[in-house]
């Protein structure tokens, strides 16, 4: 095996992103001097209040929301998803108790929907196709007069597939239900317009846009009501009690502003790197496959799988060479089940175990991509030599390509 190298290539941006230094700079005054409580009447508090208002406007602008007041600040995407789903389900209980969602959602949507079942709601997890796209026919079949909310991820962070939100919205609105979209992975990477796309509730994460962790937002279209899940001092229009995390919110807003200005160029750059990496990881290696959609895909997401080998051992091998990535294997998760997203796109358990996810970001360069491309064939070949599953023909091919 290749000796440990000092080069470090971080390709797990979807797990955590560094905070943009411009964001840090913007936040600092609100931790040092302007530390007032926005609820206080005196000037000091009003400075913080102004910062909140400006932040709301910036976040609203990123998604073309009709007005700043439609933005509710939360502690992050998990809370936004909880507030959207539990809040809308409970607030509209009199109209119906059926909630639809997809089978490629983040756990904060999956488990929130499951928790509603215990409260008497009916939750349906709609299937997706082999690329991870929601089955629109099934959506039309399942949606009925009892359905009050449909929750769909804008783009799945594991396989990168971007959903046809506008088409989904038309089906949902035809039945007078609300559409909640979890845009955690997508927001800041691809342009989102809540008006054009017909989105009623939208989850936004700060860290996924290079803002600080522990802060997020929920867009609530004018006229869409949710019941709060946190009770207290009545901040955020009574929908999210608790003293506002002003530095975090200012950071989120700055991150949103930067994303808006730089998204186009950065997404173009990342898409080129993404496709270069996908080709490099698949073309020279037999029995290798892409997970997710080839083109309707987040610019930062590379998800591949290799037959006959297991994901954690790929990650460990990469780690030894300074490459930090992620896997759909159960061995890297808290449960013994492989990723539900990979199973939902029809992969067998053993295929899901052999999956590798690399997510790119602002600091990823072509050199990083080339480095990973160059070392992957030998990593896969070594593990396949150890594996009892590798077919004889493939073993010969591995040796020949040496």
């Amino acid at each position: 095996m290749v000796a440990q190298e000092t080069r470090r290539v971080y390709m797990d941006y979807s797990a955590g992103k560094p905070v943009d230094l411009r964001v840090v700079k913007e936040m600092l005054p609100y931790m040092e001097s302007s530390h007032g409580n926005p609820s206080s009447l005196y000037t000091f508090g009003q400075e913080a209040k102004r910062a909140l208002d400006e932040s709301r406007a910036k976040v609203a602008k990123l998604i073309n929301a009709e007005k700043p007041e439609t933005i509710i600040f939360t502690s992050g995407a998990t809370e936004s998803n909880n507030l959207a789903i539990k809040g809308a389900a409970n607030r509209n209980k009199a109209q119906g108790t059926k909630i639809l969602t997809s089978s490629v959602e983040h756990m904060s949507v999956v488990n929130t929907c499951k928790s509603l079942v215990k409260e008497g709601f009916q939750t349906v997890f709609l299937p997706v196709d082999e690329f991870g796209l929601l089955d629109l026919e099934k959506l039309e079949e399942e949606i009925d007069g009892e359905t009050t909310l449909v929750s769909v991820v804008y783009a799945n962070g594991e396989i990168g597939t971007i959903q046809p939100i506008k088409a989904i919205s038309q089906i949902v609105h035809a039945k007078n239900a609300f559409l909640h979209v979890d845009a955690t992975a997508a927001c800041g990477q691809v342009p989102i317009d809540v008006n054009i796309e017909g989105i009623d509730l939208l989850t936004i994460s700060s860290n996924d846009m290079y803002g600080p962790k522990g802060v997020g937002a929920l867009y609530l279209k004018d006229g869409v009501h949710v019941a709060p899940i946190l009770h207290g001092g009545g901040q955020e229009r009574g929908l999210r009690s608790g003293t506002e995390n002003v530095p975090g919110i200012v950071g989120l807003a700055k991150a949103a502003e930067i994303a808006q200005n730089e998204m186009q160029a950065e997404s173009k750059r990342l898409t080129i790197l993404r496709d270069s990496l996908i080709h490099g990881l698949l073309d020279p290696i037999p029995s290798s496959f892409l997970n997710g959609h080839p083109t309707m895909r987040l610019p930062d997401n590379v998800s591949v799988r290799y037959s006959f080998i297991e994901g954690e051992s790929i990650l460990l091998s990469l780690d030894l060479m300074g490459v930090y990535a992620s896997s759909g294997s159960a061995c890297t998760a808290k449960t013994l089940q492989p990723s539900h997203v990979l199973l939902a796109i029809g992969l067998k358990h053993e295929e899901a175990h052999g999956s590798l996810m690399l997510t790119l970001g602002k600091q990823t360069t072509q050199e990083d991509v080339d480095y990973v491309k160059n070392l992957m064939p030998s990593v896969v070949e070594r593990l396949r030599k150890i594996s009892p599953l590798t077919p004889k023909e493939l073993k010969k091919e591995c040796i020949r390509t040496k």
Partner: protein
Amino acid sequence: MYSDKVMDHFKNPRNMGEISNPDGVGTVGNPVCGDLMTMYIKVNNNRIEDVKFKTFGCGAAIATSSMTTELAKGKTIEEALTISRSSVAESLGGLPPVKMHCSNLAADALHAAIKDYQEKREKKKEVRK
């Protein structure tokens, strides 16, 4: 997450491969669960003269396979049968708790190979009779 010893065996697995005419073969695990191991043994005068493995699985699965072969090589059948999951984990300087059950199957694969060897030998005896 892993001890240096686990990483050493993962990086440089000992006795990896197959034995062409083995006296015993044992396979445990299931690719569906993410772990599958095959252990091959060559026995001479009741002693495990050679042992090799093939493993599909995580780092712990590969390291425990490698360690098990190292522990088993040169041992008598009776000695080899005392090798257990916990003695393999111990020899590796411990395993993360979550790996103790799912990926620590190599001792079982060795025992299965020994059982296969013993059954084959019984059959041979019967044929001679």
